[in-house]
């Protein structure tokens, strides 16, 4: 056999020390989770340690975001194999921003959980599992390889299985069966589409797929995109596949619900966004009518479900699905405004969905009930709580000047600017969704706070700890401040969105620009 001139396959130079900031958040949270697993019997120490680890993760995420804002997408490849052979991690502005938001929200939830924890309850692995969940979520946001994304999905899934059964009440087991089977099925469908992608394109590196996919058979690629839509649609609880979310998110303890609502559906919708809009834009165009139908269905069904629901946390579960619909609208209209709106909405949803579950936890603690029919009359008794909940209702519906308004504005702008029937339908659906969400939220608010207390054997109110109010209030303050002063967010989106629509810089950062397929 003659000597072929083979291209180099190995990285000859070591990765620059500064580039390690890309994987440090992952390494820190994984190592932290392992350490806390060993120290699970150590009482308050594990909480302190987890806060320290999380602060480290946040610091790494901030420096990563600053670097990406400054110098464009950043990439690092594992094991000295050059991409597309080595497993790449790559961060664009959106991925880094989502990772940072997730870490901040996780820190708030951990503080809230510690303050509300029953001191007599036995020590579980809660902080350790939370760090593992964060590792999975951060990995999904920062990975540059489809198979690696599958692995991070499973890391997230295993951690969330642990969290959802923590405590082991029968209702949690019932919820875990539904949650577990549906999510396992979704990741298996994802794996199925990965097998087909590998068979067709011979690569699973995201940047490499972006280069190779346009020359592949469009019908086959559309099939793969449809499978990805199915898999991530289950994960994100998009319209026809959403029944598992309100059935399972209200069962575990409220901190776990808050974490799930903040992080898990957002990972699914981000994966959908990235795979359809950024990686396979040509296949997305073929699926456009389906995407419009799913987006409109999700936007309309979710708030209607919330209106019909009497269980507080189940109703909020439907509001979480409504947030997914807004991002789906951005996927259906991938113009610059649509992509920016969808990205900004994910940041908003991570914060506000977590906050609304934390406030729901405070309400449940105060009233000792989970059903809104047996609540009531705490408007004057607990003014801070009623104010927090009302602000969150307004933010979820997208009322100015709160954070939720700006992404919705961008999405409606994108829908109107699109012209055509699909843009019009989505614009109307977004506005109807806002009105219905407002109705659902204010109905919940009126039932819980405003109307007189029902004549049941009411238990004495049990106030949550100050720290818990502070944690929930901090997130709400973040929503208000970011809504009143959105310029930094807009600046980040203005820098980041063009990279999603034209991923040349991203592909170059992974190191595949010079080659032709």
């Amino acid at each position: 056999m003659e000597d072929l001139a083979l291209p180099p396959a190995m990285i000859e130079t070591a990765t620059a020390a500064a580039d390690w900031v890309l994987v440090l958040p992952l390494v820190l949270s994984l190592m932290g989770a392992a350490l806390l697993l060993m120290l699970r019997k150590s009482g308050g120490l594990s909480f302190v340690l987890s806060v320290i680890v999380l602060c480290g993760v946040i610091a790494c995420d901030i420096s990563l975001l600053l670097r990406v804002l400054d110098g464009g997408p950043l990439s690092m490849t594992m094991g000295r194999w050059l991409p597309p052979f080595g497993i790449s991690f790559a961060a664009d502005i959106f991925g880094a921003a989502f990772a940072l938001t997730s870490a901040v929200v996780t820190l708030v939830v951990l503080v809230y959980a510690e303050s509300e924890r029953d001191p007599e309850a036995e020590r579980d692995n809660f902080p350790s599992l939370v760090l593992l969940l964060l590792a999975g979520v951060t990995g999904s946001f920062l990975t540059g390889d489809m198979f690696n994304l599958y692995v991070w999905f499973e890391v997230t899934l295993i951690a969330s299985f642990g969290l959802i059964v923590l405590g082991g009440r029968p209702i949690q087991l019932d919820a875990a069966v539904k949650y577990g089977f549906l999510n396992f099925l979704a990741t298996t469908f994802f794996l199925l589409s990965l097998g087909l992608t590998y068979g067709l394109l011979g690569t699973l590196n995201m940047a490499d797929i972006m280069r190779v996919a346009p020359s592949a058979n469009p019908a086959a690629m559309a099939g793969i995109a449809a499978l990805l839509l199915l898999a991530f649609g289950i994960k994100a609880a998009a319209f026809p596949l959403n029944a598992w979310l309100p059935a399972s998110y209200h069962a575990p303890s409220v901190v776990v619900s808050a974490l799930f609502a903040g992080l898990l559906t957002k990972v699914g919708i981000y994966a959908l966004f990235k795979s359809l809009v950024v990686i396979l834009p040509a296949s997305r165009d073929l699926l456009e009518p389906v995407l419009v139908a799913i987006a409109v269905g999700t936007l309309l069904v979710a708030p209607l479900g919330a209106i019909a629901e009497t269980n507080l946390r189940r109703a909020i579960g439907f509001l979480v699905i409504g947030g997914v619909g807004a991002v789906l609208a951005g996927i259906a209209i991938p113009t610059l405004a649509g992509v920016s709106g969808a990205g900004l909405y994910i940041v908003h949803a991570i914060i506000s969905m977590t906050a609304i579950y934390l406030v729901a936890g405070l309400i449940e603690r105060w009233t000792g009930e989970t059903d809104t029919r047996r609540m009531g009359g705490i408007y004057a008794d607990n003014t801070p709580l009623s104010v927090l909940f009302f602000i969150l209702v307004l933010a979820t519906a997208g009322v100015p000047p709160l954070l939720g308004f700006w992404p919705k504005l961008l999405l409606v702008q994108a829908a109107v600017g699109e012209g055509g029937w699909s843009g019009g339908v989505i614009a109307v659906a977004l506005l109807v969704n806002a009105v219905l969400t407002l109705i659902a939220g204010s109905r919940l608010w009126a039932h819980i706070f405003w109307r007189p207390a029902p004549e049941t054997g009411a238990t004495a109110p049990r106030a949550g700890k100050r720290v818990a109010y502070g944690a929930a209030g901090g997130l709400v303050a973040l929503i208000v401040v970011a809504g009143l002063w959105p310029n930094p967010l807009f600046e980040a989106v203005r820098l980041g969105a063009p990279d999603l629509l034209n991923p040349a810089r991203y592909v170059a950062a992974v190191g595949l620009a010079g080659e032709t397929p």
Partner: protein
Amino acid sequence: MDYVLAALVGCFIALGIYLLLSRSVIRMLLGMVIFGNGVNLLIFTAGRLTRDIAPIIPPGLAQPDGPIANPLPQALILTAIVIGFAMFSFLLVLAFRAYQSLDADNTDTMRLTEPVDEPNPPLSY
């Protein structure tokens, strides 16, 4: 050979989905495993079937001698099997605990999170 394996993948996935549609949690679990193995087989087939030698470079050469089998699908499947087995173990334990606590193996009777006896929305508030 490809066609045989493709047909086998189809059978696995069809059987898996058939079992997943049943009411019994254990049957659903078996369906999940068969579905997962069908997907593993699909990755293996999609990675091109060859009768070539193992991808090992003989001593003294800079590159493999002649065509080699593609090692990547095997690495992918190995990862997927390990993860799928972990999930299967968890769900198996979960099904057993659910059977113990809820006294139910039938998903129709597992209605704690979505009670069936509630009145319709306008009447319920």
